[in-house]
């Protein structure tokens, strides 16, 4: 039983990390109805900026805080540029046009980040504890090993989700974001400034990307592979629904636990290496019963 619980906990923890990336997708989808293909590239760009700035500012009084502040500014500027140069010319265009535009942003950011900051692996240490915790030694033979790094990540993700939930449900800007997502033209007609809302949402998505980048970066080292983490968020979104912050979290937990348990117990029977595609199979199985995802909204269009 001990090993099973251990795998389950590890899976749930991994799921929280996937949720962190999935959150960025959800934010932009909620506010613009666009699937932002560039979210992974934003994670990489934010993390690269942060870690390289930390290196340059290492002799200052607070390298972490300073580089964090500068990276936040960079992500705000990025949001402004995306809105001004990419989104504004595409207002009221079909969602597929906006999606294709985010594809372009992804490639541009991947290249720009590596050109400015380099393509090496950069070690990121922001003081997150790395030593694993051994729990319940008296209950299970080998105890239950839990990664303290993943625990911190779960805590951060929890705080972030709570903050975003409040932002979306309780603030004027949050309600405006949801209105824009429902219908650009209708939102504009009631006086909601579309451009301003898009800057806000891309900034928030950029900040979520920064948090995800710092946590994944301190786990893996900051490098190009961070942009591929976005692929792990896709089954989470399919399962949880593209419009729900809560869905991203629950979806992440199910996908994380499902893929780790399948890899550990089913993998050895069929050759292993199944967790990557198993996550998609799991998500698709859910879709058979709830095509909108667990927490996605049902859209009924009059034709």
């Amino acid at each position, binding site marked *: 039983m001990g*090993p099973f619980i*251990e*795998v389950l906990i*590890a*899976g749930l*923890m*991994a799921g929280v990390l996937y949720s962190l990336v999935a959150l960025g997708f959800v934010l932009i989808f909620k506010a613009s109805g666009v699937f932002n293909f560039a979210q992974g590239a934003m994670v990489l760009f934010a993390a690269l900026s942060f870690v390289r700035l930390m290196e340059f500012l290492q002799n200052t009084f607070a390298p972490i805080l300073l580089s964090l502040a500068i990276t936040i500014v960079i992500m705000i500027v990025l949001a402004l540029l995306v809105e001004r*140069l990419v989104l504004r010319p595409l207002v009221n265009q079909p969602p597929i046009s906006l999606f294709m535009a985010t594809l372009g942003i992804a490639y541009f950011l*991947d*290249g720009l980040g*590596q050109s400015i900051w380099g*393509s*090496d*692996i950069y*070690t990121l*240490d922001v003081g997150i504890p*790395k030593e*694993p915790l051994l729990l319940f030694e008296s209950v299970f033979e*080998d105890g239950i*090993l839990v*990664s303290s*790094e993943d625990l911190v990540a779960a805590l951060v993700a929890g705080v972030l989700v709570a903050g975003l939930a409040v932002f979306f449900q309780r603030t004027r800007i949050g309600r405006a974001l949801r209105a824009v997502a429902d219908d650009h033209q209708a939102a504009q007609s009631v006086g909601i400034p579309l451009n301003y809302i898009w800057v806000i949402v891309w900034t928030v998505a950029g900040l979520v990307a920064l948090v995800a980048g710092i946590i*994944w970066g301190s*786990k*893996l*080292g900051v*490098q*190009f*592979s961070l942009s*591929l*983490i976005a692929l*792990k968020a896709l089954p989470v979104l399919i399962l949880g629904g593209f419009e729900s912050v809560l869905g991203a979290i629950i979806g992440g937990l199910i996908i994380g636990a499902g*893929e*780790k348990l399948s*890899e*550990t117990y089913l*993998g*050895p029977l069929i*050759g*292993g*290496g199944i*967790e*990557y595609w198993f996550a998609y199979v799991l998500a698709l199985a859910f879709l058979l019963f709830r095509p909108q995802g667990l927490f996605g909204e049902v859209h009924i269009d009059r034709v």
Partner: protein
Amino acid sequence: MKLTWKLAVSTCAIAVLLSGCERQEEEAATGGEVNAAEQFVPLLVYRSGPYAPNGIPFANGLVDYLNLVNLRDGGVNGVTLTYEECETGYATDRGVECYERLKGKGPTGATAVNPLSTGITFALTEKVAADKIPLITMGYGRSESVDGSVFKWNFPLLGTYWTAADILVQHVGNLSGGLNKLEGKKIALVYHDSPYGKEPIPLLEKRAKMHGFELLKIPVTHPGVEQKAAWLQVRQNRPDFVFLWGWGVMNSTAIKEAAAVRYPRDQMYGVWWAGAEPDVTPAGRNSKGYNSITLQHSSGRTAIHADIIEYVHGGGKGAGPEKDVGHVLYNRGLINAVLLVESIRTAQGKYGEKSLTGEEVRWGIENLNLTAARIKELGLEGMMQPVKLSCSDHEGVRRARIHQWDGSDWQFVSDWIEADNSVVRPMVDAAADKYAKEKGIKKVNCTS
């Protein structure tokens, strides 16, 4: 105003593109004066993407040596080496595209191709035979391509994955008090789930049968950023040794995950593509004690590096930062270039000091005989063992050492170990014969 703004953005974009083109032109340059006779070397590199941290130092070592030969010696016997880089991103399709684009360049076409990817090697094996261009796969590629009677154009120089796996088993056998002491022990192979990662499995299965150890096969999906399940399996099965067959981010993640499940790093042994600085530094102090087999060399500088710093970096033509000269993968790229240049030199001995065709260079590689004296003369003493190829042996040498990361540098922890050819060669012959039969290849008679 609006028009001006758009014009400015477009101008910037064009400027960025043009600067890229300019860089490519520069890369196609020679590092020195262009002589009448040129030898073109296509360089399939990856300086961006998930495997860039490993691809960059290798490419830098290769390029620096080619430039050194031009700048210090005026080329190979007066023939200037020219090259052009093509970015593969470690992707097989892009690798094939790069090959197609560069194979016809230069006065005599491509000298030889070094794809630095087992996937690209598999894709190019038939193409190079048709195009008559040698395929150098130093320390990677198809293990059975050692047999030159079938794989006339493939050269897995200095070692294959079967060689590496055999040496690793011998090493852990030595540590256990002899190969017979491996009986009842468990060895886990944590591998990149790709042709590269699967390559050592047949050899390890054979050795497991011979010595009675249990082989646990644990695949990790590309690129290897998520390995929790794999390492929980390691924790549950408690293998005596873990062999790590990873590349890029998979290696450093594996070391971190090993630490997270408290698996001793000094019981981990990476293949030579899992034993360089980018593999250990991201895991910080958790990497201390981690081992890997070397492809002969480790990190460090010898006389050749002094020349590179003087002639190449001193002249502002260094491919990367000077501080990285002498890192493990830099040295590997450097040795790869040395073997290529010495092969060209060997071929010139037969065909004359002029631009050579791929077919002529192939003869040079197959007849390469790098003696200890020549290695010393080249400034590589201590880095590698003598290499001698033949028609039936396209590997040249099967010896390696184990090095261990002490927290700040690599240290050798074993003497030279030679792969047991009585174990490996029958597998090479059987696999090569099977390949020849499948593809209808007429074997070359190597005895004549």
